[in-house]
């Protein structure tokens, strides 16, 4: 009996000792289990690489005129002969003449405040509303080919044409067109629009840059300090300066509102046509050009990006930064190149 009691007492002592140890370790155990993994954090191993999309990926054509991301995150691509391609993050789908587009040559894509998609095609303006495509192919008897579309912060849709100036759709249903601008012939081909942080709308033309501010159009051209009047693309950097790329020359023009400076694209080519510019979230500026390829500028140095050999003779003609900060480039021959940024 005594032996039995002694054993029980020993077991009790051991249990008490274990409990005391466990109590001391409780804060540590609680602390470890409070360290939960945040599901929103992006794995760095999935970043900092290039992805390529071509016919084998599901693109219907590899000459890319434009790349656009809608508010839902879908990527829309305007191709030369394959209509509009839509990428939902998993697979590509196509909108062509079979679905009602006026042409399979899609120069521009935009989304309005109602979420409806606008396509500028060789056959006119196409609106995708509720699964139905509506076509506007002439305005005042003139063919209407929006080679560029831009929806600004004041809910206006700007359309630029090849030789017929601009058309701006305003009003709650975009039926009003109070703003129009036609002047010298070289101003009437509009390659692109940009809105700066003051709300000024900038337009790239063959006669320089046109800007719309306080309900007036003005011109910023070589007489004002622009390096070359054949402006292909305009962008505002995160220092607040406006950059002008041109179809000719190896210099870019940077304008701070007062002073103009020319930035030399020393990437080893005798000339470069810069078609498009993208600004990443870390302030680097990416130039889509031909034949120099993709050139990155970190504010101090220009780097030509090394890509696979098939891009050596290709021209990069459009670019776009998506909601995640990834940079998309469209080419003339090889489809799309996407840089998944760090």
């Amino acid at each position, binding site marked *: 009996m005594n032996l039995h009691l002694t054993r029980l007492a020993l077991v009790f002592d051991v249990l008490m000792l274990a409990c005391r140890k466990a109590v001391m370790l409780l804060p540590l155990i609680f*602390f470890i289990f409070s360290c939960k993994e945040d599901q929103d954090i992006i794995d760095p191993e999935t970043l900092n690489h290039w992805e390529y999309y071509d016919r084998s990926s599901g693109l219907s054509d590899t000459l890319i005129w434009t790349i656009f991301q809608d508010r839902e995150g879908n990527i829309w691509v305007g191709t030369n002969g394959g209509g509009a391609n839509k990428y939902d993050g998993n697979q590509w789908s196509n909108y062509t003449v079979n679905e009602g587009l006026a042409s399979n040559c899609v120069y521009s894509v935009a989304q309005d405040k109602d979420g409806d998609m606008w396509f500028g095609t060789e056959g006119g303006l196409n609106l995708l509303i509720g699964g139905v495509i509506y076509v506007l192919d002439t305005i005042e008897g003139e063919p209407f080919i929006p080679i560029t579309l831009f929806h600004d912060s004041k809910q206006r849709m700007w359309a630029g044409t090849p030789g017929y100036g601009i058309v701006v759709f305003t009003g709650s249903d975009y039926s009003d067109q109070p703003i129009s601008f036609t002047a010298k012939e070289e101003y009437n081909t509009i390659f692109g629009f940009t809105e700066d942080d003051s709300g000024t709308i900038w337009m790239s033309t063959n006669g320089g840059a046109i800007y719309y501010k306080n309900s007036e159009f003005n011109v910023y051209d070589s007489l004002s300090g622009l390096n070359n009047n054949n402006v292909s693309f305009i962008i505002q950097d995160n220092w607040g300066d406006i950059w002008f790329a041109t179809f000719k020359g190896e210099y870019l023009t940077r304008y701070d509102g007062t002073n103009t400076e020319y930035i030399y694209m020393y990437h080893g080519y005798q000339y470069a046509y810069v078609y498009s510019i993208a600004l990443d979230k870390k302030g680097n500026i990416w130039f889509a050009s031909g034949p120099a390829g993709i050139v990155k500028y970190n504010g101090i*140095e220009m780097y030509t990006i090394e890509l696979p050999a098939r891009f050596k003779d290709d021209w990069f003609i459009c670019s776009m930064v998506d909601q995640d900060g990834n940079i998309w480039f469209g080419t003339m021959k090889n489809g799309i190149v996407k840089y998944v940024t760090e």
Partner: protein
Amino acid sequence: MLQQNNFATISSIMKLRESILFTFLLITFPGICQDNAFSLLTERYVERPLSMHRRQLQINSGYEFSSLNKLYDFKGNSLDLNEEGIASAKHLFPVEIKYGILEWLQVGASMNYARMGLRTQNFNFITNAGKISHSEIKTWTGFDDLFLGVDLTAPVLPDVMNWVVSGGIVLPVFDHESDQPAHKIDFFNFYSDSTVIQYRYHYKFGNGIPIANIGTSLKFRFSKLAIATSFYVEKSLSEGESIYWQSRIAEGEVQYQKIEYQYDLGQTLDYHASLAYQAINWLAVIFYYNGMNSAGGWTTETGKKVGTGRISINSLGVGYEIQVSIHLRLNQVIDIPVSGENTMAYWIFRSGISLNLIPSGN
């Protein structure tokens, strides 16, 4: 009624006196013979407890030199940075103060001052504007954060085992934001028609956010040997905000602007093990294993909430400790990285001095 009130007052005063007396006894009760400060201060390494004796004050300092050896990538592959032309050296001056309030309760504070430089190799490329030579120098200078900690010794098998539970906090007392860079750019070198661009960044060591630290240590003591192991968890208590500097050349000068971003350091596990051999009474040789594993950190520097990735490093070290006098101990350790993931690996040479005091009269 008045008498009842008086009785209650006297009773509460007596309870208070009892409490004070009990607390006094608890604090002053000699768990170990405190009147022999000499024997406590000259304890052999293998016998010494992990925390301080009651009323023992320990001040530790020294110098640590680290040299960048290699880099471990995400997959744990080792890259020899000396061959890549990347070099880095770090000079660290630690200060640590520990005090034993009771035989089982220790408080401590520590802080480091450090300088570190990291230089990348020159990168040259030819353009039709001439040769461009590019290099980067990054420096870190200053104090890191202040650590305040408490150690509690568990009264379990004190003759063989010493078990300590530790808790603490790392407080951001110094500025953690990087200073403005000072890039050096020489255009159109007269002789070679080249541009030399040297990127110079200046960083700080501070974390910028408070970090909680909790852990436990065990030491098994034998006549000639001691085996110790410890395990600590660190976790940032809040998300932090900091800046990085964006730079550009405009009108012939380098201009800078601050860009703000958020970050979190995530959680870190530190684990250590050591085997000490008491060669002679005043000399102990110690073999170390040190490991660190970190995860859950992120930064929005690039506009996205990007994880800093899982980081780990394992190193082996060897060192010794000499009891120079009653109050003075010296130690030296060399620590060499052996494996890791997603981190730069430094070999470390550390020389330490430890001053130990127990006021007389105990």
